[in-house]
């Protein structure tokens, strides 16, 4: 298979919070930051990741709107929808376009504006990706699937609510070092579990998951610009190569999985991505995992291969996943701290890893990071895209 190398030459991001701007402008703002970062004024093609604009914002064909808002016409543009993995799916499409030789410079933007609707409609919109006849009709939502998953994980592997709270504390601490992160609040395990206020400040959302186990509903946009070697060589920034892409799927209904505590799509996608890059899980220096719920960071850290199955929470206890640990996970704050504008998340993960590998992450910089990894988790683990990045110098 002859493929060209693909490099990240520009990155941009908006604040993840409630944004009072039209969705098109949220995507275009991040895109302009990325163009400035890359020092380019033209791209060959644009992929825009978004999941729910039809229902959330009454807007469709976002790609066409963004390319025109950026005055980049007549470049080609497409909207990529793959649930919460839309972002990494769009990065993967950009990778394919450059690697194949079809295009030299491709812009990949992701954006979502979820707070234009009320929280009940936002929850319902996200729940629309569950099985329409066997899950959705019952009132199944993503938090409820995560709740049922968490209960099994606790029963089987001895994960406790304190472990879950430790993920929340770690990621919100990291988010305090990220000015673009949605949640800017210092919390402690005692404060959200043991204090007299805990019952009111941290109520159940989907037992046994509590408020602080769930990511916020955010607006936001992120962008990366991918290019072939000839273009990338002209860049003054340290070169970061997108070295591996992997994707795998699993059953639509969670109940159809033989072992409901396994996330086989994560396992498959991560293995593919790392193999393509020619590295092992132990070679990864920094990772952004899809912690839409705290339990998912623990489970994914095992399925990717950083820790043995059932031991992720033990590594967490020892601080191995914190900023100064053996394998820092979610230095950006993750979905928990940075926020989760669904379509933007996968691109924001790529943004953070590029920043880390360039050495531009300031207070939250992971020292000597050369290999970075992202896991973008679609549905409840039924469609997962993993990316591996390497610093080239």
């Amino acid at each position, binding site marked *: 298979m002859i493929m060209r190398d693909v490099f990240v030459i520009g990155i941009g991001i908006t604040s993840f919070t409630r944004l009072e701007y039209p969705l098109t402008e949220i995507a275009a703002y991040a895109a302009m930051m990325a163009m400035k970062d890359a020092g380019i004024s033209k791209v060959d093609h644009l992929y825009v990741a978004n999941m729910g604009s039809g229902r959330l914002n009454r807007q469709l064909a976002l790609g066409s709107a963004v390319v025109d808002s950026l005055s980049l016409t007549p470049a080609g543009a497409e909207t990529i929808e793959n649930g919460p993995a839309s972002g990494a799916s769009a990065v993967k499409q950009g990778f394919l376009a450059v690697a194949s030789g079809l295009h030299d410079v491709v812009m990949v933007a992701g954006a979502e504006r979820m707070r234009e609707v009320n929280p009940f409609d936002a929850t319902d919109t996200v729940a629309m990706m569950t099985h329409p006849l*066997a899950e959705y009709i*019952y*009132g199944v939502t993503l938090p*409820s699937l995560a709740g*049922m998953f968490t209960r099994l994980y606790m*029963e089987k592997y001895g994960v406790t609510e304190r472990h879950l709270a430790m993920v929340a504390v770690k990621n919100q601490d990291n988010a305090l070092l990220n000015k673009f992160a949605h949640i800017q609040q210092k919390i402690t395990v005692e404060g959200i579990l043991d204090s007299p206020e805990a019952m009111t400040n941290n109520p159940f959302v*989907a037992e*046994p998951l509590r408020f602080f186990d769930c990511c916020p509903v955010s607006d936001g946009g992120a962008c990366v610009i991918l290019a072939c070697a000839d273009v990338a060589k002209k860049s003054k920034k340290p070169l970061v190569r997108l070295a591996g892409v992997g994707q795998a799927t699993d059953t639509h*209904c969670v109940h159809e999985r033989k072992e409901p505590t396994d996330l086989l799509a994560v396992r498959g996608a991560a293995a593919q991505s790392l193999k393509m890059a020619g590295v092992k899980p132990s070679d990864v220096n920094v990772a952004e995992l899809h912690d839409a719920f705290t339990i998912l960071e623990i489970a994914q850290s095992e399925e990717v291969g950083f820790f043995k199955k059932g031991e992720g929470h033990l590594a967490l206890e020892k601080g191995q996943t914190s900023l100064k640990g053996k394998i820092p996970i979610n230095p950006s704050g993750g979905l928990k701290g940075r926020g989760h504008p669904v379509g933007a998340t996968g691109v924001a993960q790529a943004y953070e890893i590029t920043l880390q590998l360039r050495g531009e992450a300031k207070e939250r910089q992971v020292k000597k990071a050369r290999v970075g990894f992202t896991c973008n988790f679609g549905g409840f683990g039924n469609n997962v895209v993993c990316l591996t990045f390497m610093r080239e110098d």
Partner: protein
Amino acid sequence: MALEIYAYKCKKCGHLHYPFRMRCKECGKNDQFEFETVPLPRKGKLLTFTYVYNLPPAYAVAKLGLGIVELENGLRITGQIQIPEPKIGMKVTGAVEAVREDEYDRRYGMVFYAA
């Protein structure tokens, strides 16, 4: 006629599926819709469950019980639970009842009770 929820049995290899899928997961050899319908058993054991508090607009309740149940024939199903103190592994019995109602629509599904 009593309401039923059906499993789908592949006419080529006999593998049971729930919910419906077009192509058999086991043998992949069936033609479109080449399944026999078999009513789902009502008895089973609770594999996992949750009570969820942030509900879509269609639900005018404070919290909703949801669970995954392994039925007598080994098939699993997601459903609502009406069990005050659920425990993993407990025996449950299902009934087909309205599970989602809004202005224009009433959907039926399996609701489980302690057996």
